[in-house]
């Protein structure tokens, strides 16, 4: 029975397996090897581009540390940190009081790392500039205004003529801190026109569409005439979307900009745990839909190498990293907040 044919086919069966095994053992060990430390993070896609940029710069500076930031949304980041699946979480929204006890690693710290405008991006053939007030935005996103030529929209734009295209609302598919901040803004600025509440998810009107992550929303908007949605400034800029100017508390229509975001952060009240809300703040230059974003870490680290690497990384983000922010369309922290955050680094306890 042991003919050459059989042997050849045995070879055909075994060869790929051996190949895989060889490739498994010979290739460079990327994570978990001796002398290298891997940090895993997940969460907010709002801050993802800034994180990615900071990580790239940090890794080239400190060899031996690998950082993976998985995105997935603020909700995912917080869940993963709860179960200690990750070493740090990115989040744009605060932890609910009811959830605090679920964090297996005990006390956690908020590190503000940057802030940025949430743009109201749209695609509408023939319309290159658009102004929207809070109540109009609320009407659009709750589905009561269905056509672009609605009088509410035309009134905001000096009675300009706008095509009668159907409005397509684009929102986030998954639980998201961007959604949370955007809907909080609508609660604050929309008045009685906004009835859907706020949160990581809300019940959007039917026939609205969703995208995965900020980039997914940006993609859907860029593909759909008549679409309007909320996207972080960095992704919207990079995707060359058009965005609306939003009316702030001083009754000025302000286009999303880093300066407008910085003004909003400067106007906000910073609490002792470094949480704050820069939404719908007063001031003529303030862009009203400005989102804060934090990195969330446990105060007590359990692994010396990881704890040290994490602290180094946060320090980098809060110092040199701030210089990278504007290059990728995020606002630097105001100096006072930056100093408070750096001071808080001392609260991270690393085992000896």
């Amino acid at each position, binding site marked *: 029975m042991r003919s050459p044919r059989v042997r050849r086919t045995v070879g055909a069966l075994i060869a790929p397996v051996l190949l895989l095994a060889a490739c498994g053992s010979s290739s460079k060990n990327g994570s978990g090897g001796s002398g290298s430390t891997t940090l895993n993070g997940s969460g907010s896609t709002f801050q993802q581009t800034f994180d990615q940029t900071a990580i790239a710069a940090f890794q080239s500076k400190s060899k031996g540390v690998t950082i993976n930031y998985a995105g*997935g*949304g*603020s*909700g*995912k980041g*917080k*869940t993963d940190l*709860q179960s200690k699946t990750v070493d740090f979480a990115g989040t744009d929204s605060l932890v609910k009081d009811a959830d605090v006890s679920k964090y297996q690693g005990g006390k956690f710290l908020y590190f503000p790392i940057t802030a940025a405008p949430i743009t109201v991006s749209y695609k509408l053939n023939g319309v290159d500039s658009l102004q929207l007030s809070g109540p109009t935005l609320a009407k659009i996103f709750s589905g009561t205004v269905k056509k672009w030529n609605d009088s509410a929209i035309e009134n905001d734009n000096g009675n300009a003529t706008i095509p009668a295209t*159907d409005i*397509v609302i684009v929102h986030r*598919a*998954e*639980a*998201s801190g961007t959604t949370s901040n955007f809907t909080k803004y609508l609660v604050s600025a929309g008045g009685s026109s906004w009835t859907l*509440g706020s*949160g*990581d*998810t*809300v*019940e*959007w009107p*039917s*026939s*609205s*569409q*969703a*995208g*995965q992550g900020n980039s997914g929303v940006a993609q*859907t908007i860029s*593909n*759909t005439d008549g679409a309007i949605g909320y996207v972080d400034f960095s992704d919207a800029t990079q995707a060359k979307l058009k965005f609306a100017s939003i009316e702030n508390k001083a009754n000025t229509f302000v286009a999303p900009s880093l300066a407008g975001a910085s003004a909003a952060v400067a106007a906000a009240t910073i609490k002792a745990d470094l949480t704050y809300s820069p939404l719908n703040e007063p001031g003529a230059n303030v862009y009203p839909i400005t989102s804060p974003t934090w990195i969330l870490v446990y105060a007590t680290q359990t692994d010396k190498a990881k704890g040290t690497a994490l602290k180094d990384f946060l320090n980098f983000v809060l110092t040199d990293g701030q210089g990278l922010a504007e290059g990728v369309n995020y606002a630097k922290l105001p100096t006072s907040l930056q100093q408070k955050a750096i001071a808080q680094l001392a609260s991270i306890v690393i085992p000896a």
Partner: protein
Amino acid sequence: MTTVAPPSEHGASGPPAGKAGGKQVDRVFRAIAFAAGLLVLAILALIAYTTTNKAWPAFTHQGLSFFTSTHWNPNDDRFGALDFIYGTILTAFIAVCLAIPASLGIALFITELAPKRVRSGVTYVVDLLAAIPSVVYGFWALAVLTSPAKTIYNDIANSIGKVPVLRNVFGGPAYGSSFMTAGLVLAVMITPIITSISREVLTTVAQDDKNAALAMGATRWEMLRVAVFPRVRSGLIGASMLGLGRAMGETIAVALIIGTSHQVTSHIFFPGDSMAAVIAHNFGEATGLSRAALIGLGVVLFAITIVINIAARSIANRTSAMTGARA
């Protein structure tokens, strides 16, 4: 459990062992092989148990309205999954409607029309459709198909979509990512399995029966109608149901092109969502009850596909044609 060794044509007459330990080895080998076989049942049972167990908090929290409510908002702990159940069924239905005529046509081409030399080539091409990964289908459709599809849908919406009654199905405004787009891509993806099983079923019809019909002066089509179709009807139904089950469980391609919108509507050019797509989009971010609810969607999906598959296999097996059918 059966402990008695089953009778088989070559085993019963086995001569005595050459070596003393041989019998022991044989017993152990048999037990290992049997355990490997039982693994199938064990995995299926475990899937049913662990997923239901993890989903239970959501089921008890939401009660029956899990299946009847259209309000799904994890932030408020509301989990009515009707939108997604509907989307799963509608897209799979569109897919099967489109795939059955094409699959049957191809299967008939292979069994009735194609010269012997061409047959394996055609089979190979159809198998290639199955070899393309789901994510590639979805990515391609999203990047390339959605925009021309929207134009075509709008043309349909502006013609057929103006007719009363039909307006409720084909009316606009049309979306590039919609139930229809998802159904279309699913149709391509399930064509291989429907074709392959239809082909197996069709080859069971005896050539003599076909020749008899032809000898009576029937054309090829009349021969098919008289001698072939009546015999294979249940087999073809089984094949179609297997395709339906596949379409319902398909995740990634659908998640990319269905439009991700919560609604129950008769309009096939509107966006929607399916159970599998919702799990793929949301599972990573879900915690606590909403995670349980997503696992609950998985339980519903598992139950539906298992029932469909069991029914389909039983029906198809009745034609005793399934000997060579491969998934």
